C-alpha cells in the first residue's frame, strides 16, 4: 500500500503541472528579390509600332512604317451580283403531238361478207364487186390512254389521215369521233372518194373540247367501189386511219406525261463596269443559287452557264427535280463556284463576235416522266430566281481610266504621343514613301500634300507639295501568279518633321488609273494583291535629348499578400544607357484618382561613357520605396525624363545597352501565427 501511495504521488507530481503545448511566435525579416528584368531598347519599344534594326556594330535604327493611302479596289472593278428572274407558264409550253393509228384490213372486211372468204379467198385474183354500205355505223375503239386520261384543250387541231391500202377505191366515207364517256361528238369527217393507194386528210379545231382517253370512231358509212377488173386479194391490205392531235394547248390534262421540255431560255447578261472592259474573271469563291417554285407536280429544270467553266467543263446544274409547291416557299439549289472562270465575252460563236462584260446562260424547264397520272392545267408555271455571288480572285481585261481622289485626311501618328522634350534633336531622319504595285495597270499618284503637325505645340512641317509618282504596271508570270510587282519610292529628309514630335500626318492625293489609256498588255487585278503604299520614317538613334519625357499609364495587378508584411521595396537599376533618368510613379485607384506617389523624381544615373560617348560601364542606382497597400491600386502613371549624357552631344544608342532592373522586398513575417 505504501509503495502504491509512493507511485501515485510520483505520478501526480509528474503530471500535475503539465503545461498546455502551444506554438511559439517570432518575427522574421527577409529580403528577397521579387522580379528581375533586363531591358534593351528592343524591350523598351516593344509595345510601339516601331521596327528596330541594328547594324553590325549594334547601332540602332528605328523605323516607323505605316500604310497611308488606302485604295479601295472595289472602285476599280465594280461587279455587282447578278440576278436572273424568269417565269415559265404552261400556256407558253408546247406539247408533243398525240398520234393514234387504227388499221382495218380487207381480210376483216371480206370475213364479214357472207361466203366472202369462199368467193374472195386470200391470195386469189378476183374482181371485187361494188360493196355499198360495207360499213354502216361501225364503231372503232380508239385507245389514247397511252397519252392521257383526259385532256381539255384551249388550243389544238384534230387531224385525220386515211390511207387506202385496199386494191380498190372506197367512197362516201363518213367518220364521227365521239368521247366514249359522255358521248360528245368531237369531230365529224367526210371523204367522198379515196382512191386505192392514196391518202386523204382532214383536220378540225378541237379548241375548247375535252378529249377522253377512250374515243369511239364511228364509221357512219363506207362504200367499197367495184374493182377495175381482177385484182390481187391480199387480206393484209388495209385502210390505215391516223388520228393526230397537234398544236396542243392544254387547259387541263390528266395523263402519265412523258418527259417533255416546256421552255427554253437563252440569255446574255451584261454588266456595267464603266470604262472597264473585262473579259475574264477568276472566281475565288462563290455560289450560284437557283430558287425555283413550280406548281407542276413533276417539274424539272436545268440551268447552264456555258461561259462559266472549271477545267474547261462548263457549269450545268444538271436535272433539278422541283417538287410541287404547296406554298410560296421556293426550292433552293446551291452550286459552288469556287475555282470557276467566268468568260465575259458572251455566247460562243455569237453574232458580231466576242463582246465584253457579258455572260451567257441557258435555262430549260421540263415536265418530268413520273410513271403516274398527273393533272396539270394552263395556270401551272415555273418561277425561277437565280442569284450569283462571287468573290473575285482576279479580273483580266482593260481596267479603264479612272481618277481616285483621296481628299485631305489626317492620320494619327501615335509613336510620339506621350513624349515631350525641352530639346530633342536627331542627327539624321529620312522619310520614305514606297509604293508596291501588284496591279497590272499603270498608275500615277499626285501627292498633293504631306505634312506633319504637333497639336500640342501647333508646330507644322510640310514635307511634300504636288509630287508626282509614276507607278508602272505589274506583270504576271506566264499569265498567272506570282505577280511581279513594281516598286516606286520617294525619299525626303525629315529631321525637322520628327523634331516637332508630330502627332498628326496630313495627306491628300489623286490617283490616276491608266493615265495613258489602254496598253498593249492586258490589264489584270488580283484583289488580294493591291497597291501597298507605305510611309516609313527611318531614325538612326543618334540623338540629343534634354528632358525627353515619356508618360505612360499602365494597368497594374500587383501582388498583395496579407500574410506578408512588406516593409520596403527596393528598385535596383543598373543603367547601361547613356542618359540620366528621373522617374515618377503615381498610383491611381479604380476611379483614376491619385492614391499615392510611389516615386517622386527618383534619379537614375547614366551609364559611364568613354571618350566616344559609348557606354563602358553600367551605373547602379537603388531606390527605396516605402511599401504601399496595393490592394486598391489599379493603374500606375509612369513619367520618365531622359537627358542624354554628355549633354549637347549626339549620343548613339546600341542594341547591347541595357537597363537591368531588380525589384526586391523587405518582408516581415510572424512565424507561428
Amino acid at each position, binding site marked *: 500500500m505504501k509503495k502504491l501511495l509512493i507511485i501515485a504521488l*510520483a505520478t501526480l507530481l509528474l503530471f500535475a503541472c503539465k503545461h498546455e503545448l502551444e506554438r511559439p511566435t*517570432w518575427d*522574421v525579416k527577409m529580403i528577397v528579390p*521579387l522580379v528581375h528584368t533586363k531591358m534593351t531598347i528592343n524591350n523598351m519599344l516593344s509595345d510601339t509600332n516601331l521596327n528596330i534594326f541594328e547594324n553590325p556594330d549594334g547601332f540602332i535604327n528605328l523605323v516607323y512604317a505605316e500604310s497611308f493611302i488606302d485604295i479601295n479596289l472595289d472602285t476599280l472593278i465594280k461587279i455587282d451580283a447578278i440576278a436572273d428572274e424568269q417565269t415559265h407558264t404552261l400556256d407558253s409550253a408546247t406539247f408533243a403531238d398525240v398520234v393514234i393509228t387504227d388499221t382495218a384490213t380487207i381480210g376483216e372486211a371480206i370475213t364479214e361478207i357472207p361466203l366472202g372468204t369462199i368467193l374472195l379467198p386470200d391470195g386469189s385474183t378476183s374482181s371485187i364487186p361494188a360493196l355499198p354500205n360495207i360499213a354502216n355505223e361501225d364503231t372503232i375503239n380508239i385507245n389514247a390512254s397511252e397519252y392521257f386520261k383526259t385532256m381539255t384543250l384551249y388550243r389544238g387541231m384534230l387531224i385525220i389521215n386515211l390511207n387506202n391500202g385496199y386494191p380498190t377505191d372506197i367512197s362516201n366515207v363518213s367518220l364521227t369521233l365521239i368521247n366514249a364517256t359522255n358521248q360528245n361528238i368531237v369531230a365529224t369527217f367526210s371523204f367522198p372518194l379515196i382512191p386505192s393507194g392514196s391518202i386523204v386528210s382532214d383536220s378540225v379545231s378541237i379548241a375548247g373540247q375535252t378529249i377522253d382517253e377512250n374515243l369511239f370512231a364511228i364509221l357512219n358509212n363506207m362504200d367499197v367501189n367495184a374493182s377495175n377488173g381482177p385484182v390481187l386479194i391480199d387480206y393484209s391490205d388495209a385502210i390505215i386511219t391516223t388520228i393526230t392531235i397537234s398544236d396542243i394547248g392544254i387547259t387541263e390534262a390528266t395523263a402519265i406525261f412523258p418527259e417533255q421540255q416546256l421552255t427554253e431560255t437563252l440569255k446574255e447578261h451584261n454588266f456595267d463596269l464603266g470604262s472597264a472592259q473585262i473579259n475574264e474573271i477568276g472566281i475565288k469563291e462563290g455560289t450560284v443559287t437557283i430558287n425555283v417554285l413550280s406548281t407542276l407536280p413533276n417539274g424539272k429544270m436545268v440551268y447552264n452557264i456555258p461561259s462559266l467553266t472549271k477545267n474547261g467543263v462548263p457549269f450545268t446544274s444538271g436535272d433539278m427535280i422541283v417538287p410541287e409547291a404547296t406554298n410560296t416557299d421556293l426550292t433552293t439549289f446551291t452550286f459552288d463556284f469556287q475555282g470557276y472562270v467566268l468568260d465575259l465575252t458572251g455566247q460562243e460563236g455569237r453574232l458580231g463576235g466576242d463582246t465584253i462584260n457579258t455572260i451567257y446562260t441557258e435555262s430549260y424547264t421540263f415536265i418530268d416522266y413520273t410513271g403516274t397520272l398527273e393533272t396539270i392545267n394552263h395556270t401551272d408555271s415555273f418561277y425561277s430566281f437565280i442569284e450569283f455571288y462571287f468573290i473575285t480572285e482576279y479580273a483580266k481585261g482593260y481596267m479603264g481610266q479612272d481618277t481616285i481622289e483621296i481628299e485631305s485626311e489626317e492620320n494619327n501618328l501615335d509613336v510620339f504621343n506621350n513624349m515631350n522634350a525641352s530639346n530633342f534633336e536627331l542627327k539624321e531622319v529620312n522619310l520614305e514613301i514606297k509604293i508596291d504595285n501588284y496591279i497590272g495597270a499603270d498608275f500615277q499618284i499626285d501627292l498633293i500634300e504631306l505634312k506633319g503637325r504637333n497639336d500640342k505645340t501647333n508646330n507644322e512641317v510640310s514635307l511634300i507639295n504636288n509630287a508626282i509618282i509614276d507607278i508602272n504596271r505589274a506583270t504576271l508570270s506566264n499569265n498567272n501568279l506570282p505577280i511581279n510587282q513594281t516598286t516606286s519610292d520617294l525619299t525626303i529628309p525629315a529631321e525637322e518633321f520628327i523634331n516637332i514630335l508630330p502627332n498628326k500626318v496630313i495627306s491628300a492625293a489623286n490617283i490616276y488609273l491608266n493615265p495613258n489609256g489602254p496598253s498593249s498588255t492586258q490589264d489584270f487585278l488580283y484583289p488580294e494583291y493591291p497597291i501597298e503604299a507605305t510611309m516609313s520614317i527611318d531614325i538612326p538613334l543618334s540623338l540629343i535629348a534634354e528632358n525627353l519625357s515619356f508618360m505612360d499609364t499602365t494597368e497594374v495587378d500587383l501582388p498583395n499578400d496579407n500574410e506578408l508584411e512588406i516593409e520596403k521595396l527596393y528598385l535596383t537599376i543598373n543603367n547601361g544607357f547613356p542618359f540620366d533618368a528621373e522617374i515618377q510613379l503615381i498610383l491611381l485607384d479604380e476611379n483614376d484618382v491619385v492614391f499615392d506617389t510611389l516615386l517622386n523624381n527618383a534619379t537614375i544615373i547614366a551609364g559611364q561613357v568613354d571618350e566616344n560617348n559609348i557606354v563602358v560601364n553600367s551605373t547602379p542606382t537603388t531606390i527605396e520605396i516605402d511599401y504601399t497597400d496595393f490592394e486598391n491600386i489599379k493603374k500606375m502613371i509612369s513619367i520618365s525624363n531622359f537627358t542624354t549624357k554628355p549633354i549637347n552631344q549626339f549620343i548613339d544608342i546600341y542594341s547591347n545597352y541595357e537597363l537591368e532592373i531588380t525589384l526586391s522586398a523587405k518582408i516581415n513575417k510572424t512565424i507561428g501565427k
Partner: protein
Amino acid sequence: MTKKTILLLLFPFVLIAQENKYEITWKSNFLFESNSLNKNFLNSMLYGGQITDDIKSEWIASGDEENNIINSEISNGLSYTYHFNKQSIKFEFTDINIVNSQFTDDFLRLFFEGNVDHQNETLDFSNTNIKANRFQQYKIRYSRTINSVNINGGLSYLAGNHHLSYIINQGSLYTAPFGTYLNVAYNMNAFVTDTSNFSIFANNGNGVAIDFNTNFSIQEYDIHLSLTDLGFIMWKASSISLATDSAFNFQGVEIEDIFNFNDSVLEANNIIDDVLRTNNTSFKSYIPAIIHLSVSGETDYTYLKTYTAGLLAKWQPYMDNKPLSFSKINQGFQESNFSPLYYIHSILNTKYCDFVPTLSHGGYSNDTNIGLALSKGKKNKLVIGTHHLEDIFNGEKATAVSLYFNIQLQF
C-alpha cells in the same frame, strides 16, 4: 538511449535479485539535452510565447560551439525476465521517441531572424540535420553465465511508426545588398514517412536490432562490454524522399515588363517546387546503437562501497549510403551527434535509500554533468533520478533536463 545507460548503471542491482526467478520492470525516461540551447528555448518551443529579438540573440550567442545540438528522448518500457540455472530470458517492450538535431548558428540566424541583417554575407548551414524517430521495440534477450562470465545477446523487432529526417551536408545562402539576388547552395537529403497516416501506432516500417553484452571479472574488477540496439528500420515505399544537390542564383522571377507582374506570375515561377522534387521510395534509417565499456570495483568505504567508470559512445549514420567499412563506422559515430561520454558513478547506501551519484562528461554536450538517482528497496525497487542535477539549479539557463523513473518487482 539514456535509458540504456541507466539500465547498465543499475546492472549491479539487477544482479542482486538473481535469487528470484521472475522480474517485472517498468522504465520511463525523459531527456532533453543540448550543447548550447537552454531550457528557455525548450519552454518557448513547447509552450509558446513571443520569441523576442533579445531571446534570439541570446540563443544564437549561447554555447561555445558553432554547431548546436539538441537531443530529446522520451521512452517508456515494460520488461519481464525469467531467471533459471544461471540463465535468463527477458521479454521487453519499449515505446521510443527520439528527436536529434544539429544546426549551425547561421541556421538559427536565418530561421529566427531572417536574412535582412545579413546582406552581403553568406549564412552557412552546412552539417545541419534533423532526425525524428518514433517506434516500438520488441526485444528478447537471452543471458547465460559460464564460469563467472556473463554473456547475453538480444534480438529486437522494431515496429516503425514515423520518421523524419532532413540532412543538409552542404548549405549556404548569400544575400546580395538590397536583396537583389540570393546565391543558394545546398546538398540535401530528406526522408519523411507516409504523411497520410499520423496515427501514433501507424506501421510505416519494420526493422531489426541486435544486442551483445558481456560481463566478466579481471582480478577484483568487473568489466562490462556491450553493443546495444545495433539495428535499422526499413521504411515503406510510400515514404517521401528527396535528394538534391544544387547551387543557383535567384534574382527574382524573370519578367519582360516590370509593371506587369502579379501573383500568378510569381506562382508560375515557384522555385520551391523546382527545388523540392520528391519521389516515393523505401529507405533505411538507423537507430542509435550504444557501445558501452565500464569497469567496476569495490572500496572499503562504508558509504562508497562500489564505483564504476565507463565510456559510452553512439553510432547512428544518417543514411545507408555506403557499405560497412571503417569509413562507415567512423561516419556513424560522427553523424550520431554524440561525443564519447565518460562517466564515473558510485553507490552510497544509507538507512532510508541508496544514492547513486554520477559524474559524466560528453554526450550531446561538452558539459560536465552531475547525475543523481535515489533507489529504494532491494527486491522490489523504485528508482528515480536525473542525469543533470546541476541544471536544476540553473533555471531557464539550464541546457539539459532529464528524469528517469524505474520500478522493479521481483518474485
